[in-house]
């Protein structure tokens, strides 16, 4: 299955298993702009898979309401770039519901899905990766998968998790990433990073699409520099797996300062995109500098 098919499969499993589960968002009924919900309305009915008008704040607020009554709400925001009208609902309402009601109420059965990340031609408003905004908000969970197999397992965990979750789907991988994915449901635990490749000289941490870039850098490093890289996919951004990534005393054991390779502090550009994204050459260069520190 490719990524969007694995998402459909996860949603299909959820709606089959959980009679209270509903899917809603802009254009989800006909299958969604990225085809993630194809066939679900026909299979489960228009009461369970339905369109909303163009109103992100309303969509999330409405989803929180559904979740508070105990039903499972799976809301789609059409592009992560559009999530900001709903930011208040997510941060001030969803994240704090359990805490402020002393555990009397919660909206844990809410999951928000959104296509995420650069895609080559998205420019300012179809390319953003806003996980950092949410990474400092206790009460919600933020997850980014790197592949179809990962996506289905992680999405099912988000839906079943008793906390409101935001699930960002790398849109560039919707069709590009294909692998074997079981048709039956399965879970991949949240807040657990995965060591994809073990190594001894340097650690590379990434999530989503960047995991593939970094993997390539690791093999370049092995080939050209004889460096052994450990590649870690963080998977859950919040709460993140601190233990796997660094042991408590690791700071004093590092031989070089930690390096961050990312986009520039500019809005996501239109024509400059190829120069903006942290491609393998930039990552490789950072690695080389660290090795030679």
């Amino acid at each position, binding site marked *: 299955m490719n990524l969007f098919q694995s998402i459909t499969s996860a949603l299909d499993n959820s709606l089959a298993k959980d009679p209270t589960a509903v899917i809603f968002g*802009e254009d989800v009924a006909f299958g969604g702009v990225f085809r993630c919900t194809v066939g679900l309305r026909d299979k489960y009915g228009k009461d369970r898979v339905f369109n909303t*008008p*163009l109103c992100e704040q309303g969509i999330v607020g409405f989803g929180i309401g559904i979740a508070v009554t105990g039903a499972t709400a799976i809301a789609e925001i059409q592009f992560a770039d559009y999530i900001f009208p709903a930011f208040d609902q997510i941060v001030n309402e969803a994240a704090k519901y359990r805490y402020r009601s002393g555990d009397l109420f919660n909206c844990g059965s809410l999951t928000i899905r959104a296509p995420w990340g650069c895609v080559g*031609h998205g420019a*300012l408003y179809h390319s953003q990766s806003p996980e950092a905004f949410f990474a400092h908000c206790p009460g919600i969970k933020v997850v980014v998968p790197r592949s179809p197999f990962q996506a289905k397992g992680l999405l099912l965990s988000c839906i079943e998790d008793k906390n409101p979750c935001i699930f960002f789907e790398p849109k560039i991988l919707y069709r590009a990433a294909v692998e074997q994915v079981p048709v039956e449901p399965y879970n991949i635990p949240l807040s657990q990073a995965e060591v994809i490749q073990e190594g001894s000289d340097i650690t590379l941490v990434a999530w989503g699409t960047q995991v593939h870039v970094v993997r390539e850098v690791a093999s370049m490093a092995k080939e050209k520099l004889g460096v052994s890289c450990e590649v870690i996919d963080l998977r859950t951004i919040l709460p993140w797996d601190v233990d796997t990534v660094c042991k408590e005393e690791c700071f004093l054991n590092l031989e070089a300062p930690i390096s961050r390779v990312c986009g*520039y502090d*500019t809005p996501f*550009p239109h*024509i*400059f995109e190829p120069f903006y994204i942290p491609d393998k050459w930039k990552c490789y260069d950072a690695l080389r500098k660290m090795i030679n520190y």
Partner: protein
Amino acid sequence: MRKMLAAVSRVLSGAAQKPANRVLVASRNFANDATFEIKKCDLHRLEEGPPVTTVLTREDGLKYYRMMQTVRRMELKADQLYKQKIIRGFCHLCDGQRCVLYCFMLSSLTQEACCVGLEAGINPTDHLITAYRAHGFTFTRGLSVREILAELTGRKGGCAKGKGGSMHMYAKNFYGGNGIVGAQVPLGAGIALACKYNGKDEVCLTLYGDGAANQGQIFEAYNMAALWKLPCIFICENNRYGMGTSVERAAASTDYFKRGDFIPGLRVDGMDILCVREATRFAAAYCRSGKGPILMELQTYRYHGHSMSDPGVSYRTREEIQEVRSKSDPIMLLKDRMVNSNLASVEELKEIDVEVRKEIEDAAQFATADPEPPLEELGYHIYSSDPPFEVRGANQWIKFKSVS
């Protein structure tokens, strides 16, 4: 007596000859103007609306025809450049051809009557803001086709220096060109506040679509504008589909002109440029008189899909598109009116078509040949900065300075 009568009649018929000759010559000349009947607008909280007849001068008619044809040709050319992958990214056009493609280009085909008609009803010193279907407005607000096409191709000759693309075009008194729909409406109310404050009798046209009409912030803007009597004309361009969702499936009330509730509104035939012009004049006069905001719903249509990745036929029938094309095409309507009232000849209009085509070709050449903005500009214009600062980013690979 008979002789005198005969003589008189000879003189008179002689005199009658000359005007007849002049009449023959005059029929090769055109009428200076003609009066047309236009559709009556539906009204909300208004005692009376725009007039149902209007006078179109030959000069104005030719000007509108040229402008509408330019917008149409420009959009078709953008469509073509897109298919050739010279334009990348998202492109939402104002025109109407079916295209099956992979990326977004947002076109305004058949919505030409809206942008040209609105411009005809206001002054260049008035202000306008819209969402992403902005190419037509960028042109009517005064920019050249070259600058628009060059912006689409991401070159430095583009109106936003190549950094904005299809959705982000700006000009004097034209505030874009905005990607997040609905977000531009409170901005428009703010511009209207500035108009009122500056006291120069200016108004602000704030546009949004039938999809965005359901966004919460629009209602916030309505409230503020009405409370403070801002000279803001809210305009809903209802082309019946929000991407692929028809209005009945998205809105509890499709009477968009009434959605301002306490704000008076009118529903206008957006395919008829004269109707749009009269309604705009009416609305602008209303605002300028200090009565507060007003809402206009322009009923229009788009031939194209929402964007270039949308073939536009999965949610509506080809027959529907064809019917609009054959019966309500705004350029055809204007052309028929002008030719039938002797304001212009078919040949003359064809000549304009040829000139417009050439202008677009030249602009497309420029847009293809102009160089892209230099890489240093990636970091420019983030803040207003003095002196320039270094942009934080990918580890030490290329340092960019932010200059403003």
